[in-house]
């Protein structure tokens, strides 16, 4: 039987096992919306802004490991989605975004709600497709999911002109697709793996530096086993938090600009650096010329272009991270390889001396609420078991520093692009993927207002999110830089005319609370967690001038941290 393109679209999603599609309707996708209406397998989640659709799909993908799926209309629908697509691209998140397009014969005519979606998204997608014939639709969708989820994952855009969704053809969904120019390398080079293992054997001051690739590649268990066998310290990037259990004694904390003193000092002094699924981002390396001056560097990554991009690597290993780590483990077990226990004992003593600086200390006796204390208390009360999303800025760093993630896929934040407005819609996606879990969005009064309209979506779908608004009245990270580097000229970083967040939450049908005294923090959070079925907006009025420490100033090396 012949089906319309719109029905083929829906059947294809069903065949891919898609349970949720996040989107917003419009003229160019009306046939598709009609097809969605006539079935009950793929559930459509109606957001309030297309940016939120992409962030929600992103949060769904990060927390579940399955690709996020989005549909938006042509023109402004697609351009609104671009921020979310670029966010997913920078953090390598598997996502398939369907954009409506004007009918084929109008493309290029400046038609109503026309935009060059392929051209606009090209620099921020792994790949994109324009469907020009209904006979290609099912196979293109298959290819889109294949490309998005394999190799180094990333967002894929499929642009579908309206006439294609009305045209009819026979439907059959391919079992697999082959693309002659797309063959991700999965198996690491055996010789290089052996070289890496022999470096591990002789290393005197080694460290594992692990990133989001460990989480995306589901390699946390292998990493933990390897680190345990070798007794090496482990540091995670912002994107890698949860890849190694944060409460384990071998974990030295996050590294980078606002990483721990011990992590950055260990990086600076290490003799063997084993980078896994990390990409030597400038927020991690500090000044590149001063980065790990004594280290022989091993780098495992699925993307060859990430290797030796910023820092020249001595032992490059291209492959699927989990696969490479398992081969390393076998190599170590089969050949009875041991790390240098004597040297490591000395190395750990050094690391403990750095730890003794207690670089994350803050004033516990403060009369105003310290934002760190809110995160710490949330961590304690949730037993470290909540899903935490964040926006971007100081609150993001405090969440990363003070919530200890023991499991992967629990920490959901925009690391690469640094997208304010990400936290709330991402939390919606997480809650859809994990309906019974506690999902908290740690945010600030600046970021939360960038996608605040999604409180309405949360009402519609009864999403019991917990919003922790660390409200200091400032764009805190901007303010901090202005204090440090612009002689306290606080240009545009003070937020005037803030809404009454309690009333705002209530107007959407949620619960709102404002907390102003440190002594009330714990009680309020307890109350919040009791309201299991409600979205609770917690407006914490925090210390206005608190800064994030420690900090590597721009241009500094990892051994040049500003401590509190």
């Amino acid at each position, binding site marked *: 039987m012949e089906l319309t393109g719109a029905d083929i679209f829906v059947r294809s999603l069903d065949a891919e096992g898609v349970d949720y599609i996040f989107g917003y309707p419009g003229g160019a996708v009306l046939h598709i919306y009609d097809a969605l209406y006539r079935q009950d397998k793929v559930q459509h989640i109606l957001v309030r802004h297309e940016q939120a659709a992409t962030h929600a799909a992103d949060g769904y993908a990060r927390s579940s490991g399955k690709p996020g799926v989005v549909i938006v209309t042509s023109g402004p629908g697609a351009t609104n989605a671009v921020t979310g697509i670029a966010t997913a691209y920078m953090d390598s998140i598997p996502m398939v975004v369907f954009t409506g397009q004007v009918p084929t014969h109008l493309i290029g005519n400046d038609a109503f709600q026309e935009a060059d979606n*392929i*051209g606009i998204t*090209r*620099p921020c997608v*792994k*790949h994109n497709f*324009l469907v020009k014939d209904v006979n290609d639709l099912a196979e293109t969708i298959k290819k889109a999911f294949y*490309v998005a989820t394999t190799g180094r994952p990333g967002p894929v855009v499929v642009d579908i002109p309206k006439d294609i969704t009305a045209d009819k053809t026979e439907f059959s969904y391919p079992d697999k697709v082959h*693309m*002659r*120019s*797309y063959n991700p390398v999965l198996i690491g080079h055996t010789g290089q793996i052996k070289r890496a293992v022999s470096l591990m054997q002789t290393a005197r001051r080694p460290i594992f530096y692990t990133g989001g690739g460990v989480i995306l590649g589901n390699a946390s268990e292998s990493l933990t086993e390897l680190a345990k066998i070798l007794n090496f310290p482990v540091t995670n990037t912002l994107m890698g938090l949860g890849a190694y259990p944060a409460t384990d004694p071998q974990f030295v904390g996050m590294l980078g600009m606002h990483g721990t003193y011990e992590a950055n000092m260990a990086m600076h002094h290490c003799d063997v650096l084993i980078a896994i699924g990390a990409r030597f981002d400038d927020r991690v390396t500090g000044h590149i010329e001063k980065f790990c001056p004594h280290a022989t560097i091993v780098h495992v990554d699925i*993307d*060859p*272009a990430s290797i*030796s*991009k910023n820092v*020249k690597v001595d032992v490059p290993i291209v492959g699927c991270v989990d696969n490479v780590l398992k081969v390393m483990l076998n190599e170590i077990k089969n050949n009875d390889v041991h790390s240098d226990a004597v040297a490591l004992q000395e190395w750990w003593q050094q690391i403990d001396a750095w730890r003794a600086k207690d670089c994350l200390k803050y004033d516990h006796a403060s009369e105003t609420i310290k934002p760190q204390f809110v995160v710490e208390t949330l961590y304690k009360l949730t037993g470290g078991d909540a899903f935490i999303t964040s926006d971007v800025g100081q609150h993001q760093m405090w969440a990363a520093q003070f919530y200890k993630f023991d499991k992967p896929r629990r920490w959901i934040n925009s690391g690469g692009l640094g997208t304010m407005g990400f936290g709330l819609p991402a939390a919606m996606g997480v809650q859809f993927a994990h309906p019974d879990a506690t999902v908290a969005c740690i945010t600030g009064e600046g970021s939360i207002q960038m996608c605040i309209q999604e409180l309405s979506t949360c009402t519609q779908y009864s999403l019991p999110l917990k919003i922790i608004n660390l409200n200091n009245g400032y764009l805190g990270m901007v303010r901090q830089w202005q204090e440090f580097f612009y002689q306290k000229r606080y240009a545009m970083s003070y937020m005037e005319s803030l809404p009454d967040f309690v009333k705002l939450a209530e107007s959407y049908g949620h619960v709102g609370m404002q907390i102003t005294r440190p002594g009330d923090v714990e009680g309020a959070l307890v109350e919040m967690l009791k309201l299991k079925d409600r979205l609770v907006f917690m407006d914490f009025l925090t210390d206005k001038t608190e800064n994030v420490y420690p900090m590597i100033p721009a241009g500094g090396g990892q051994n040049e941290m500003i401590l509190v």
Partner: protein
Amino acid sequence: MENEAGALSRVAGLFSARGYNIESLTVAPTEDSSLSRLTLVTRGTEEIIEQITKQLHKLIDVVKLMDMTEGPHIEREMMLVKVLAEGDRRNELKRLSDIFRGRIIDVTDKTYTIELTGAGDKLDAFLQTLESSVIVEVVRSGVSGIARGDRALKL
């Protein structure tokens, strides 16, 4: 690369987005109509060339990639030059064209159009020998290249 709309802009977009320089670029379909061949000349340190190579490999429309300069190879570029050829100049320009093994492919009572093929520096040299006042128009094709010997860029 795949002979598809958009493939070229992915390559060009990659170069501009990452700040790499394109000195010349030619592209045309091959004997296999599903493929087109793109020859691009760029400059950079070894590290930059390695990055460019890896980034190009990542593009899904790029099927196969070869760095010509890794082995012996031949580079050719074609140029069409329209020159003012009046009076005494007519003979001189004809002789110059012969010296560079150019061919005059169009003639009017005021102009010659000369076709010249060779490596880029030969074309540069020819242009330098012409007085700038005689040059009406210059069209260069950009560089094409092929490896010497058995080495070939083929699927």
